[in-house]
Every structure is written in C-alpha cells, then in structure tokens.
C-alpha cells in the first residue's frame, strides 16, 4: 500500500469523524441555538470509554499505562459504550449548565467544563493514564475479520463513512421533523417558544444529549483508528475548529456543514503539511490555530450566511401532501 493511499484513506476517516462533530454541533447550535463550547469533552468521553473497554484489564500502577475499569468488549459494545458515555456525560453536564440563565453564562459554563475536564484528566493518572494518555487501542470489528485499522485504512474509512451517513440521515430527518421545527422556534425566541407551549428545558436537554451521543460515537470511531488518545487531542480549541467549519459552510444547513468540514478541518488544516515547513517543528500548528481564531473572528464580524445557507421551508412543500391544491396555489 502506498503512502498516498494510506494518507487519503486516513483523511477520509478524519472527514467522517469531523462530519459527525459538525452534524452534532449544527443540530445543537444551528437548529436549537444551544452553544456548546465544551463539545470536544463529549467526544473525548466517547474516545476514553471506547479505549478502556477495548484495551482489556488495566495492568495497574507501575505498568506503562493504567486506567479505570478495563475490559475486552466485543463489537458493537465498544461503540455502544462510547455513544452512551457521550450521552450520559451530556445529560449530567446539561442538567446543571442548561438551566434558565443568561446564554453567555451558559456558554461560559460549558467552556469552563472543557478547561477543567482537561486539567482533571491530565492530572489524575489512575483515571486514563494522565497526560500521556492511552495507546494500543484496537478495532474490535476489524478483529472479527482479521483486519487492523492502520493496515486497512480504506476498509476503516468505508466503515466510518457508512456510520456517518446513517447518522446524517437520522439527524437530517429529525431536524426536518416537527421536533426540529420546535428547536428552531426555541433558537429564534426562547420566551415566545415557551409561551407557545414548548417545554424549553426538555428540548434543550434532548438536543444536548443527542448531540453528546453523536460526539461520543465520533470519539469511539476516532480512537479505534488512531489507536491512542490523550489530553493533547482534545484541547478546548478543538471545539472551535468545528464551529468555524459550520460558520463557513452555512449554519443550519447540513449540506453546507459537510462542505465546511471538508474546507476547514480537512483541507485547511491538512494542506500545510505539503508546504515547505517553516521555523521550528510545531510552528505551523500554532499558526494554524491562530488562523482558526482569525477565521472565527471574521465569521463573527461579517456574519456570513455560509456557502450553503439555511433553506426556507415553503408552506407549499410543508403542506404539499396535506392540503387541497387550491388554497396553496392561491397563497404561494
């Protein structure tokens, strides 16, 4: 297998994982207006959860890595556990951070959760091996067929893209459903939505937990491919790459969000690898982050509607199968 083939396959896997993140955040932010600045924590939760149920029993302190629990769960339990980890952590965090309070406090709380979680996991070595992180995570599904993830990136890519397509279809369906409409009402005017009979707290928590489940799943997929997971992989800034992708592609439009994922985390963050390296090793990475920050600021300044903006749901389409044709024609 050529290096190129390996590289493209890997990029495809990253795209699938990032697309899952973008879909999840778009559901939360683009549809429901919930600003989840701690998104990456829920992905990390899924990754750690998948890692410890794949790695097997921890050898305990003194060995080269230690962690809690530890088991050899067969497929698909590894990904189920990852998804549940994301969902349950979201539920716990959502219960205290999504209360009725100023939206900026809410967002700041989630950012704080992200910062603190990183400190805790880095410092608490018995939990997930601290700052060194976990390594040697395998791919339970591949093992059934005698495959390993790094050896067959295209197989893994097909698998990850397949999952992403399923999630995409499901989330798009939910977003277009009456429930998705309620989310948009809540996003546009919270007080009015609740005065129209919508239970804001429940809607917010639901969207937070669904998003968290997807985040957990994406973490599980990622860790089973790269085989390792450490605090370096989920700094608070990672969340904003996904946000920037959504802004660029088009908030509230899933096709736009996929395009944004292709442009920002994949092309923008990967292309510089082919440029001649400048300065000391690591400088490019730092500068890329600065650029992400700048892109984020520009998005806020010019408030672009994105490359593919949110689409208007016309009454004609909404009611096409619903009403006799006459009044619709007259009104449209």
């Amino acid at each position, binding site marked *: 297998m050529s290096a190129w083939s390996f590289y493209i396959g890997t990029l495809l896997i990253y795209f699938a994982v990032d697309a899952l993140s973008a879909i999840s955040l778009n559901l939360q932010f683009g549809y429901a207006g919930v600003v989840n600045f701690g998104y990456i924590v829920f992905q990390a939760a899924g990754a750690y959860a998948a890692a410890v149920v794949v790695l097997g029993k921890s050898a305990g302190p003194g060995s080269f890595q230690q962690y809690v629990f530890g088991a050899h769960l067969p497929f698909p339990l590894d990904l189920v556990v990852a998804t549940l980890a994301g969902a349950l952590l979201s539920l716990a965090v959502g219960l205290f951070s999504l209360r009725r309070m100023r939206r900026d406090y809410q967002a*700041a709380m989630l950012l704080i959760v992200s910062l603190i979680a990183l400190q805790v996991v880095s410092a608490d070595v018995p939990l997930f091996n601290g700052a060194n992180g976990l390594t040697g995570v395998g791919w339970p599904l591949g093992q059934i067929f005698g495959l390993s993830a790094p050896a067959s990136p295209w197989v893994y890519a097909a698998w990850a893209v397949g999952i992403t397509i399923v999630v995409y279809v499901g989330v798009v369906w939910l977003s277009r459903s009456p429930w998705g409409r309620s989310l948009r009402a809540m996003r546009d005017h919270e007080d009015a939505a609740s005065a129209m009979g919508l239970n804001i707290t429940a809607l917010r928590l639901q969207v937070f937990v669904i998003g968290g489940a997807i985040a957990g799943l994406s973490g599980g997929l990622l860790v089973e491919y790269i085989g390792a997971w450490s605090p370096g992989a989920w700094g608070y800034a990672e969340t904003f790459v996904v946000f920037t992708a959504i802004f660029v592609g088009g908030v509230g439009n899933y096709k736009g969000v996929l395009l944004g994922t292709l442009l920002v985390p994949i092309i923008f963050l990967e292309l510089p690898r082919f440029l001649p390296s400048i300065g000391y090793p690591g400088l490019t990475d*730092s500068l890329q982050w*600065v650029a992400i920050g700048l892109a*984020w600021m520009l998005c806020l*300044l010019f408030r672009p509607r994105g490359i593919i903006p949110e689409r208007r749901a016309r009454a004609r389409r909404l009611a096409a199968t619903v009403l006799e044709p006459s009044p619709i024609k007259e009104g449209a």
Partner: protein
Amino acid sequence: MSGQLIASIADGVVLAAILAVAAMGFTLQFSLTNVLNLSFGSVMTVGAFVAYLIAVVHLTPWLGIALGGVAGAVTTVVLGRGVLRLYARRRTQLFEMMMVTLGLSLIIDYTVQAISHNNIYGYSVLQGSALEMGPIRVTPVQVGIVILALVVLLATWGALKFTRMGKALRATAVEPGLARACGIPTGRVVLVTWVASGFLCGLAGVVFVISTQSVDYTTGEGFLPLVIAAAILGGVGNLWGAVGASLVMGIVTEVVAGLGQGGYSTVAGFAILVVVLLLRPGAVFGGSEDRQLVL
C-alpha cells in the same frame, strides 16, 4: 491531620490572594461593559510572559511585576478599544461579543504558543527561604502576594468609593443611559476601566506564575475557570463579594489539593459555583438578557 488542614488553608489564602486580584479586575470590567471576557485568561498569560522576559534579561523582578501589569493594561485596551468597538459598531449583541472574546483568546494563546515554541519555562524569582510557624510553611513571596492583594483591594475600593472617576464608573455600571445623559463621559469611564482591569489582569498573571514558578501558553487559560467562578459567585460588580468568593474558592481548592487530589482542586472550586447555582439561581444570576453592551 489538622496540621495538614491548617497548612492547606494557609496555601488557600495565598491562592485566594492571586485569585482576588484577577477576580477584582474581571468583575470591574464585566459589571461595566457586560462583556463576559473569555480572553481574560490569555491576557494574564501575556502579563506573565512579559515578566518572564524581564527575568530573562536579568532586570529586577519588581520591574517584571510592574511591566506585566502594564502589558495586561495595554493588551486589554487594544482589545477593548480596537477590536470590541469594531464589533459593537456592527451591532454585535452581548452574546456574540462573548464569542468574539473567545476568538481573541484563541489568537492570543496560540500566538504565545508560536512565540514561546510551545515550551514550559521555569520562572523562579523572589523566592526566599521558607518561614515555619507550626504546620504553616510560607515563603516571604507568599506573604508578599497576600499583602499585594490587600493593597490592591484597598486601592481599588478607595478609588471606586472616593474618586470622581470611581463614582462615575459605578453610576455607568448601573444605568449607562442615564449616566450618559447626566454628562458622565462614559467613553472615558470605559477606557479607564479597561486600563485598570487590564492592569489587575496582567498583575494577577505575574503573581500567579511567581507562585507556580513556571509559565507556558496555557497558564492563564487554566486559571480562568476559577476567576470567572469567583467573579460570578461574588456577585458581578461586587468588589468585596469577589474577594470573599476568592477566599472561599482558594481555600476549598487548596484543601482538596492537600487531600492528595491535585487534579480535582479546580473542580472543587467550580463545584461551589454550581451548587450555589442549583440552590439559588436567582442570587447569582439576577441579571437578565436586557443588559446593555457598554463600550
């Protein structure tokens, strides 16, 4: 055991002193402008690095402390006057303004990372030999930090209470429209607030790294949760509240760390905020969204 506890409490007071300096700056800034400034931690990092550079060129650490504060003030004024105003002119809402400060935080953090080669630098200044009083073991610099915090508290309190500018600031924080109508130069008030809070922010950054004896690009970001928690817990705009909350957070944090749970010390501080929130949401989050952006 009790000796251990007393020692932890003493450490907590030192941490509280650092926290208080930052929280006072944060609460001052937040109560006036209503911008929840998430780049506060990054500005702390900038102040800390400036002090480190002063030490590198072998100048007196006192100059480092002063210039760290100045660097914080300058950075904050540039951000507040330059960047945030630009956004305010485009009718950016309060909430989006917080997102803007987050972008600033990303940019500053990673610029510092680029410049500092992503290294952790040791910063050991003013450390004298420790004084022992029973279980308590303090270094002269720790005593100095507490004294500094007290001085800052008294100076800030006095300035707010007795000077014209302080009174104007308090008036503007409560009713910006009315203050403007009464002829208070709110633009100047905001500028002075950026300078003062920025200075406290940079100062806190320096004091923090003097205490931890190391500095890297995540220095301020790691401290930010405690600062925000203390400012909110103390009641936004409430100077004594911020100091009281800092004291509570500092002590709880160090006691938990003293129990051998260093990783969870910040969690413990944050948990207090969450518990207060859950029990009495109104007490802490009294304000509603109809607060105005003042820039």
